[in-house]
């Protein structure tokens, strides 16, 4: 009898489990997402990295607007908004049912407080964009009006979609925000535990104003070694990872039936940085020759196995609305040689390398981060290409902090620089704002704050000044296109490629991830339930392409899997051989010699 009850129970369970998948999509018990670094306290003052650190912060806090998967600002805490035509006044109305995680209501006063707090205690990412605000008026619990001293075309992105709103009742008593550990916000998840170097644990905020989030418990284990992280995902110990999968492993991952791989454009921009302040790199012809010598497409195909987009010579990513599509990457070794000949860089002593215009030998060093295999391969290929056109140079790989201290001492371009060439990369925020062209190339360190090549050209500066004073969208667009064209011909540095982001996750556990262009699947949109249907619909039409199992890559991937298995087999055979060898010889010996034979 007992047994039959048991089987009835089992059958019932089976039925229930049939229904479960439907529910599972709405409510996931626990999800483990691997991250590579400890991010310290997860509040806007203490997090460490822009990605995924700030994305974790954004799970705990809310912003007034949010960037959608194509990085367009959409209202979030804000219900309605109005912008005057001159772009100087923003009238915002907040949702009226927003609560802090301790139950107190979030009001317009908190917003005003936050903006004033960040001005009082600067945190440059959040503080600088707030500086255009002239005055803030609060009306009622949800109304707020921002008056700007000058129109700011990216005001909706930064600060409005970037600035996490702080609870006044907690932060009004904080006077040393850099040491503050409190991380209570209004966001969809509540920070429950942080074990330094081990993991973060968040639980869902069921009272969230956009509805309870879909995951009850979010765990972010910290695994610094990316190989270990990949292994953990393959072994099913993680359900998703924050880091992009390196190109050579993509096929292996997509051949794993338990995992889903999504790829899309990345905004991190890899470039070949030139110290434009140091002779002979001061010569435009010399820089142009370098540009012509480098085969960017080959880099994308051989180093990144196609998981990247070839760099536009004007720096700005082709998916940006400000992209100048007239510009095409160049590659022509003969032309590179010709340019050098014409400019007087000629090999006079016949050693195979060119001397400079005064006849002195050239021997350049090409710096690269030692911790980044992709960059090292890139540097090697470029170095070879330059040697081929007669520019003597060699690659020097050093740890990132050391390279930084040579190329960008004290992270202050006014403090000079001590290098020739280097493989460099700017993070994705650089592509979000076209105005950053000024930061990259303007000769005044106060404006060109990341002009690490020390590039100086009054013509470019003029364009930059003009851009700063222009509010009209069309005029701005044409100016930014001009700037790209200028940069393409004057080559202060060479944009190599934009590496794609390849994310992987276990769809059986949770599959409502949203691929945000330039960032990947670990972002706030992936972990909130509201408007999910809308986003899922967009998903299909967004530029994301899924690596499908039946495509050509899948064939290659099975080969790849074979390679991998053969590696294990090889290892096992090797071990077996050693052990067998020992045992065989021992047996023989046991029959023969005496133990006392010494």
């Amino acid at each position, binding site marked *: 009898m007992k047994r039959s009850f048991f089987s009835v129970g089992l059958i019932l369970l089976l039925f229930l489990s049939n229904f479960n998948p439907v529910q599972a999509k709405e409510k996931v018990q626990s999800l483990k997402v691997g991250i590579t670094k400890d991010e310290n306290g997860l509040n806007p003052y203490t997090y460490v990295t822009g990605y995924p650190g700030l994305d974790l912060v954004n799970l705990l806090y809310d912003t007034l607007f949010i960037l959608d998967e194509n990085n367009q600002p959409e209202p979030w805490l804000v219900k309605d908004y109005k912008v005057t035509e001159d772009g100087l006044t923003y009238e915002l109305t907040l949702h009226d049912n927003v609560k802090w995680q301790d139950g107190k209501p979030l009001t317009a006063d908190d917003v005003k407080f936050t903006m004033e707090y960040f001005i009082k205690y600067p945190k440059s990412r959040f503080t600088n964009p707030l500086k255009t605000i002239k005055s803030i008026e609060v009306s009622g619990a949800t109304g707020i009006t921002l008056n700007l001293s000058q129109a700011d075309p990216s005001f909706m992105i930064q600060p409005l979609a970037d600035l996490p709103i702080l609870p006044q009742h907690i932060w009004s008593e904080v006077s040393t925000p850099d040491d503050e550990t409190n991380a209570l916000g209004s966001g969809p998840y509540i920070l429950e535990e942080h074990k330094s170097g081990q993991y973060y644990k968040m639980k869902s905020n069921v009272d969230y104003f956009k509805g309870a989030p879909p995951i009850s418990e979010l765990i972010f284990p910290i695994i610094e070694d990316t190989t270990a992280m990949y*292994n953990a995902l393959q072994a099913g110990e993680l359900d998703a990872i924050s880091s992009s999968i390196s190109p050579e492993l993509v096929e292996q991952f997509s051949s794993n039936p338990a995992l889903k791989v999504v790829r899309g454009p990345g905004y991190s921009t890899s470039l070949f940085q030139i110290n434009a302040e140091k002779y002979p790199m001061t010569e435009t012809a010399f820089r142009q020759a370098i540009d012509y010598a480098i085969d960017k497409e080959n880099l994308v195909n051989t180093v990144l196995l196609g998981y990247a987009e070839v760099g536009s010579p004007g720096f700005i990513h082709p998916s940006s609305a400000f992209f100048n599509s007239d510009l095409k990457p160049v590659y022509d070794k003969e032309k590179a040689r010709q340019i050098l000949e014409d400019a007087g860089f000629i090999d006079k002593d016949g050693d195979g390398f060119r001397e400079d215009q005064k006849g002195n030998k050239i021997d350049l060093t090409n710096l690269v981060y030692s911790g980044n295999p992709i960059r090292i391969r890139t540097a090697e290929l470029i170095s070879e290409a330059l040697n081929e056109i007669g520019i003597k140079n060699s690659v020097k790989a050093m*740890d990132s902090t*050391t390279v930084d201290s040579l190329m960008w001492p004290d992270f202050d371009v006014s403090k000079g620089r001590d290098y020739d060439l280097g493989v460099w990369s700017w993070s994705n925020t650089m592509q979000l704002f076209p105005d950053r062209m000024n930061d990259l190339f303007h000769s005044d360190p106060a404006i060109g704050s990341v002009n690490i090549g020390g590039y100086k050209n009054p013509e470019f500066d003029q364009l930059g000044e003009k851009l700063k004073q222009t509010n009209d969208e069309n005029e701005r667009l044409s100016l930014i296109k001009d700037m790209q064209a200028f940069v393409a011909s004057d080559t202060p540095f060479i944009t190599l490629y934009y590496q794609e982001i390849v994310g992987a996750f276990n769809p059986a556990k949770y599959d409502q991830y949203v691929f945000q262009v330039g960032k990947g699947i670990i972002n706030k949109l992936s972990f909130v339930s509201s408007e999910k249907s809308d986003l899922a619909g967009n998903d299909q039409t967004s530029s994301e392409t899924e690596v499908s199992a039946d495509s050509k890559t899948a064939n290659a991937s099975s080969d790849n899997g074979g390679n991998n298995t053969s590696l294990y087999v090889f290892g096992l055979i090797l071990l077996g051989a050693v052990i067998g060898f020992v045992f065989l010889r021992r047996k023989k010996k046991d029959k023969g010699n005496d133990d006392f034979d*010494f």
Partner: protein
Amino acid sequence: MLGKFIAGKFLQYLIVIFLMLTLNFLLPRLMPGNPLVFLAGEDVGFMSSAEKEAILDKYGLNDSIIEQYGAYIKDIFTGDFGYSYQQKRPISELLMERLPWTMLLTGLGLVLSTIIGVMFGAISAWRRGTKTDANLLTVFMFLSAMPSFWVGMILVSIFSAQLGWLPVFGAESAWSNYSGIDRIIDIGKHLILPLATLILISVTSTFMIMRYSMLNVLGEDYIMMAKAKGVKEKVIKYKHAMRNALLPVATVFMLSLGFTLGGATVIETVFAYPGVGRLMFESVLSRDYPLIQATFLIITFSVVIANFLADLIYPLLDPKVGSRNG
């Protein structure tokens, strides 16, 4: 007499400690680069010079090197390691979190690899010149030639990724709130692979030392004498030979004991094990001066103390040493 011996040694060690403290202070500052990016965060490039200066001021990095050195020495003698730049938490707290894991991993690794090394070293020496000896030598040389990260990754890909028997990372599934025996089993499971890696790569040195030391002892006249007397093989092996051969092993053990607190950086990184070695590695990468100082200090101090202990224990283990001095 023994007191004078200890006092002399003590003075020696004081000088060594002072030199180490100073080096410990200078080395991180001699490295190129500075901790600014880790203090200021990702958008350091968009900060004004004044903002950057304010940060450096706040952490005392604009003080003269002498002032910084003074503060450092003062902190050490007050037992205050200060705050980590990067983690913004008291360093003593960080160390207390990491030390138990490191001690579990490296301590157990040292004990086990010593036992295994001694056993096989003795066998190898006892059967010197036989095929067993040659085979053992081959195997141990093979093991010592393997890089630790490679061994670790191979073990992970076989036992975790392919077979799924053991966890890939971490020291425990801390978020699952195991308690009691479950927690111990969980910790044990997480320990197996890193421990195995550690033993595989470190066992050879003990093996080699034990083998050569045992060979020396076996060449002594008293062994010949014992054999001639017809003493049982086992007695010669364990009582006469092995016990005497253990002396150099004990020295090496004591020295390694000093290093255990430093953790096993590579293995801890490969297995995401929250030990001191990883902490040290991170601190160097991020130029987290106070944390670099604290972690290096722990290692240097424990090495010095282990040396000191070895000096003290040696006369007890080998009366010949004591009598020479006393």
